[in-house]
């Protein structure tokens, strides 16, 4: 490095442990988050496979778990939800891609607080290990669902998994909260303080906006979940009565009195609803980025997109009550929550129209990342449209706790967010690993996954309307649900196919990492800063230089420009929109 350039707060590490294990480099930490989430998603997916198989063959003896008893089913369901929501949907889009690309896209050498960044990953890792430990303790994993509703979650003798397993679950969530808060702190400070010269807020790529707003949501929401978790631990272990009223369990009066299970619901959902946006906003950012890049058009309505992200984030804090319409809340409160929920449809629709506007008359390049971005929009619309149904108390009351809700949230916050991650993986893989992923297998993976997820989750809406409850371990013997068994069988076969297709992705990922064709520095002819640097980027991202930004992030097909794209660092003399 040339003299007189202290360009990086920490020098490039040499040893293996400092380089790949306890690394301070945001890129390595981003990959650590990514691979943690990849591990977690396979665990979570395996659990869902066990549940789907059990649903149609209830007496089958399954590998690793044996015969599934009702309580086993509930623990599978709890762990599936918890792993997927926290360790996949929160970890990969924000911790993984955000960590890797936020600093590069704003022209910074690293995150604002690299040590904190490392701590936040390793704390997340510990949280994951603690959660998995719940499988291996007496009584097994907890039964209370990912929402951990009291009093079930607050009583240690309420079921086999409610002993140590539930304590481990709460502890894991509390550790995860602290990790996420550290991450959010880093993202916000980095975005506000480390942007390169010329990178005004309104020149940031929409991915950065999404990560930034997501971090703010996390900052406000995870503290509340932490507080709820602390109260729950106190109720379980110190005999307090925050959540537990006078209850009788198995004929025995418990020592608690006067607490309210509703308190848990309020605190949990005050976190829980913003959490949905924590999962989906980064996906929206990636979709916006890719739709513009692969349509070779500026994003339609950049400012509207930014304000829509803000509005979604803001409104997300006002709607937690729509998860509690069944709790006997005052109809006036329910009306207010319903109205606010419907209002979220407005910024969501703005985003959708802008995505379609971006595609309209674009010179679309249907490469794998673009397919996933379009798939994201499709799933966002399909899953989102059932939102306004569930937002109305009069419809939610019959649909609540049915498979309709399962179909709704899996489409919108589950699979749509996962499509965002797939899009991000195929798009940024060349930058991360210097090689291209296989295009053919990418397409195969896309079409099976898209069709598969629709086959799994669309029919669930019908199941729900026909009255099939969620969380029931066995319903094949219930007369009124007999006619739904063929549809359930279809869903299970679709799930097996879709899960099988994910191995195509994993093989493609690892094969391409070592054997894929070498990539150029800017294979997609994109404009943002990560494509201006070497592949993979050097330790300080820009090789001792700081980029100066002269243009917005989506300058495609600029009239009179020498190429059909103007990079953000191109000279200011190039006229753009």
């Amino acid at each position, binding site marked *: *490095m*040339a003299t*007189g*350039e*202290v*360009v*990086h*707060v920490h020098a490039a590490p040499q040893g293996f442990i400092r380089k790949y294990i306890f690394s301070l480099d945001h890129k390595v930490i981003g990959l650590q988050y990514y691979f943690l989430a990849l591990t977690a998603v396979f665990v979570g997916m395996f659990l869902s496979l066990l549940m789907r198989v059990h649903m149609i063959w209830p007496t089958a003896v399954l590998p690793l778990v044996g015969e599934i008893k009702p309580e086993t089913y509930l623990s599978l369901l709890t762990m599936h939800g918890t792993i997927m929501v926290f360790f996949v949907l929160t970890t990969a889009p924000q911790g993984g891609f955000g960590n890797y690309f936020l600093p590069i896209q704003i*022209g*910074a*050498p690293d995150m*604002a607080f690299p040590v904190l960044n490392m701590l936040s990953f390793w704390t997340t890792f510990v949280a994951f290990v603690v959660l998995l430990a719940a499988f291996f303790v007496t009584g097994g994993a907890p039964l209370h669902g990912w929402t951990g509703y009291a009093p079930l979650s607050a009583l240690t003798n309420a079921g086999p998994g409610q002993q140590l397993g539930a304590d481990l679950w709460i502890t894991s969530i509390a550790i995860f909260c602290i990790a996420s*808060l550290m991450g*959010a*702190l880093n993202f*916000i*400070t980095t975005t506000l*303080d*480390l942007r*390169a010269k010329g990178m005004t807020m309104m020149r940031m790529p929409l991915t950065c906006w999404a990560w930034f707003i997501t971090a703010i949501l996390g*900052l*406000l*929401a*995870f*503290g*509340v979940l*932490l507080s709820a978790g602390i*109260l729950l631990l*106190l109720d379980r272990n*110190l*005999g*307090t*009565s925050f959540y537990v009223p*006078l209850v009788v369990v198995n004929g025995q009066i418990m*020592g608690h*009195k006067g*607490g*309210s299970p509703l*308190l848990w619901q*309020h*605190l949990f959902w*005050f976190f829980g609803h913003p959490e949905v946006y924590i999962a989906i906003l980064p996906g929206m950012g990636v979709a916006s980025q890719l739709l513009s890049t692969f349509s070779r058009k500026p994003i339609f309505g950049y400012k509207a997109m930014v304000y829509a992200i803000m509005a979604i984030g803001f409104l997300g804090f006002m709607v937690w009550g729509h998860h509690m319409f069944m709790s006997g809340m005052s109809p006036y409160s329910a009306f207010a929550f319903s109205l606010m929920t419907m209002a979220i449809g407005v910024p969501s629709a703005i985003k959708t129209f802008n995505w379609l506007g971006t595609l309209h008359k674009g010179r679309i390049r249907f490469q794998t990342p673009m397919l996933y971005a379009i798939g994201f929009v499709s799933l966002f619309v399909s899953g989102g449209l059932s939102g306004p149904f569930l937002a109305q108390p009069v419809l939610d009351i019959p649909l609540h706790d049915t498979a309709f809700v399962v179909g709704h949230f899996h489409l919108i916050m589950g699979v749509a967010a996962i499509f965002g991650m797939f899009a991000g993986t195929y798009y940024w893989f060349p930058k991360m690993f210097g090689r291209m992923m296989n295009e053919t297998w990418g397409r195969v993976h896309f079409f099976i996954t898209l069709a598969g997820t629709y086959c799994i989750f669309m029919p669930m809406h019908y199941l729900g309307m026909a009255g099939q409850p969620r969380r029931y371990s066995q319903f094949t013997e219930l007369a009124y649900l007999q006619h739904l068994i063929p549809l359930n069988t279809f869903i299970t076969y679709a799930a097996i196919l879709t899960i099988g297709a994910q191995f195509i992705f994993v093989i493609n990922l690892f094969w391409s990492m070592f054997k894929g064709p070498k990539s*150029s*520095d*800017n294979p997609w002819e994109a404009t943002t*800063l990560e*494509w*201006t640097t*070497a592949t993979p980027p*050097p330790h300080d991202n*820009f*090789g*001792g*230089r*700081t*980029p*100066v930004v002269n243009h917005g992030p989506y300058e495609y097909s600029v009239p009179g420009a020498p190429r059909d794209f103007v990079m953000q*660092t*191109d*000279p200011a003399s190039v006229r753009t929109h």
Partner: protein
Amino acid sequence: MATLTPTISINDPKLGHGGSGVHPPAFDGGDDGRGDNGFPDYSQRLRRARLGLLVTLVPITMLFVSFTSAYVFRQGLPTLDEHGTYVRDWLQVNLPVTLLLVNTLLLLFSSITVELARRQITRQVALAPLHSIPGVSIGQERYFPWLGATILLGFGFLAGQWMAWRQLADRGFYVATSASSSFVYLLTAAHAIHLAGGLLVLLYTGTTSLLHRPVEARRIVVDVAAWYWHFMALLWIYIFALLQFMR
């Protein structure tokens, strides 16, 4: 990992034009906390640390906002007793007010001492360049150990809180006696843990001063710790007021 050696100096305003599809970035000193002169930019780092602290205070505030809303919710909640009648089970906690007032004074006093420590080290930083000028002597200024005083007062406050817990227990208010007493222990403990975090940071700055870290680096830690400490004092006053006036 590849390290690139830049071919253009960092302040060169010229823009590079790559011929092969990618324009290399334009270069500038930037404003990202690295100095142009080979030395870390401490004022930049201080600003960043302060921003980081400000952001940190948000979730801490949210944690206590959340506890407060649980407090208000639980206080107003009627509950069914064994006979199926609605009762209120909220017991008024008889706080050891005198002791808590003494603790409050200790904490307020420590807030003053930490502020003096902060100003002292700011002055030290301002004078530091003069030391390196040959022939300039600014005399040996005697520094009062304000930081040490703050640490002592902080431990005093924690000990006082522990005594307050003992007094509460003597009066028959245990963690699970009533929801109200649960909240008293919860809020004081949550505050104490956060304060103990601040104490650890202050102890760390004491250690770094022994390790002869540059005064500019120490100043950043002291500055941020001081603001955090003021916030802790404010938070305590809020908690005390809540527990005393919303019994």
